[in-house]
């Protein structure tokens, strides 16, 4: 974070140095910022501090009198309890699979859409649509309209080719959740990568072509290095959103069949099991995971951002 302070302040307004009003001016500059800052600290940071405190207590909401300090016991339990540990693993699996698959698909689609062809705008709009369906609605669509073993579209289409009629959600529950999320998130990746592709230097591409570089060589040596940070950005932002996914897990499997991820587990352990301490410890673990991803994300965003500021 300290690196960002050294970013060139290209457009800093000239400060006048009339002494008595200098302090007043500084506050006048700062004042518009304060409501937003104070609001964010109150609504996001304070509750997290409370979660952190609760995570060190043995506290079941049904037996509030038995509440007592237990140190790191909750964390030990989260990490040793088979179900909870499984949900940590599920979270990792779900996030990695969805991010990678949607990133690769998004890259293919972005490369295709970067070309000029008839109806490009229409195709772009068709592709964005999955991202714009309300997440619960999208999950319902996959659960009932596509996956249903008796009248779902997937088995309906398989019927025409005489294929098997599997019960998708029961047979491959995690994959079923992942497929629906890949469908929703591929457009997001495509949009970011398309923005990256269109920020390439056209003269450089032209020069490479004049020099006789093949499409593959251009992709390998020009496009891919240029896209690297956009790929990173997509992966990291995607991870941050998907690590937190609740809607798809809740809707498609209700956390059953080994698909409960950490957010769902946190929800369940305090909303249904009333285990406040355990839920908080699991919540803190989600935060730690997010911080690890976020550290990288912030670095990528700040390098892109510094470039932007430098250009201005």
């Amino acid at each position, binding site marked *: 974070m300290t690196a960002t*302070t050294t*970013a060139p302040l290209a*457009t800093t*307004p000239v400060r006048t140095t009339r002494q008595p009003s200098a302090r007043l001016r500084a506050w006048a500059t700062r*004042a*518009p*910022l304060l409501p*937003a*800052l104070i609001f*964010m600290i109150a*609504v*996001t940071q304070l*509750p*997290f501090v*409370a979660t952190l405190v609760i995570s060190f207590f043995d506290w079941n909401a049904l037996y509030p009198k038995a509440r007592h300090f237990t140190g790191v016991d909750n964390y030990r339990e989260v990490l040793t309890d088979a179900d909870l540990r499984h949900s940590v693993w599920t979270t990792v699996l779900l996030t990695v699979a969805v991010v990678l698959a949607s990133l690769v698909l998004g890259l293919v*689609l972005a490369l*295709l*859409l970067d*070309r*000029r062809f*008839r109806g*490009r705008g229409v*195709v772009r*709009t068709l592709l964005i649509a*999955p*991202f*714009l*369906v*309300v*997440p*619960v*609605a999208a999950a*319902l*669509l996959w659960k*009932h*309209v596509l996956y249903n073993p*008796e*009248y779902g*579209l997937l088995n*309906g289409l398989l019927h025409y080719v005489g294929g098997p*009629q599997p019960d998708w959600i029961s047979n491959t529950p995690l994959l079923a959740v992942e497929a629906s999320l890949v469908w929703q998130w591929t457009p*997001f990746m495509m*949009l*970011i990568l398309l*923005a*990256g592709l*269109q920020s390439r230097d056209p003269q450089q591409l032209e020069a490479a*072509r004049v020099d006789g570089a093949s499409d593959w060589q251009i992709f390998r040596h020009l496009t891919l290095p240029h896209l690297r940070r956009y790929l990173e950005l997509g992966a990291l932002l995607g991870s941050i959103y998907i690590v937190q996914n609740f809607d798809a897990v809740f809707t498609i499997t*209700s956390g059953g069949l080994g698909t409960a991820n950490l*957010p769902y587990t946190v929800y369940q352990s305090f909303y249904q099991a009333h285990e406040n301490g355990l839920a908080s410890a*699991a919540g803190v673990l*989600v*935060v730690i995971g997010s911080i690890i*991803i*976020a550290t990288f994300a*912030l670095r990528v*965003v*700040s390098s892109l*951002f510094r470039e932007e*500021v430098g250009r201005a």
Partner: protein
Amino acid sequence: MSATIVKRKGLGLGVTAWLLGILFFLPIAWMALTSFHSESDAATNPPSFGAALTLDGYREFFGTGGGASPWPALVNSTVASVSSTLLVLLLALPAAYALSINRVRKWTDVLFFFLSTKMLPVVAGLLPIYLFAKNTDMLDNIWLLVILYTSMNLPIAVWMMQSFLAEVPVAIIEAARVDGARLPTILARVVAPIALPGIAATSLICFIFSWNELLFARVLTGVVAETAPVFLTGFITSQGLFLAKVCAASLVISLPVLAAGFAAQDKLVQGLSLGAVK
């Protein structure tokens, strides 16, 4: 763009793009078609493409067929999304002004603080917020959601608006100042016209995120303040399921988001990537 090279394989790539586009859109198209089928035509294998069209699914959804009316949930979602978007604008505009036009010192640090709050998962504060709401009788209160949705969207809005306001050339502002224009005039005549499209896009994105939100709404609302996504969760169980009704419900509830999203297409990516990508 590579308009200069025209290759024959361009046609093949175009066709591939079309096929993939249609493939991605197919589930939505199928959902739309199913919503206009009768329940018995909707639940068939193989699927019935040419079945008679009917508005029964929509009638069922809007409760005229006897089920629970979705109107309170739709109204709640509208109130929560619109109010929180307005509150976000109220807080984010001055902040963005201080971060882009009349810059505070260490403005990048402040920007990154906002971004870092966005990376704090919702579950990190859910329990204390629930306990707080329970002890202050704020459970099942739509205004609690408004506050939470505002905190969810404020970082995005600050980032986006900062980048939109930064596009206003300082020279023009200086010139207006030299000409004796005061701050309100400068804001109204110079800043607003340039930043307005960006502000509109930011509002749409905040609206979309609030409209879509499930976890807070599910935990903190009940009968009175139920939102549209919570209403949709009523369809999760497959017992006695009505497919046409589910499709109609999903489409109607997604409609505002689809409209807002298509309207803000170009700015969507900038908002989602928190202004890092233009």
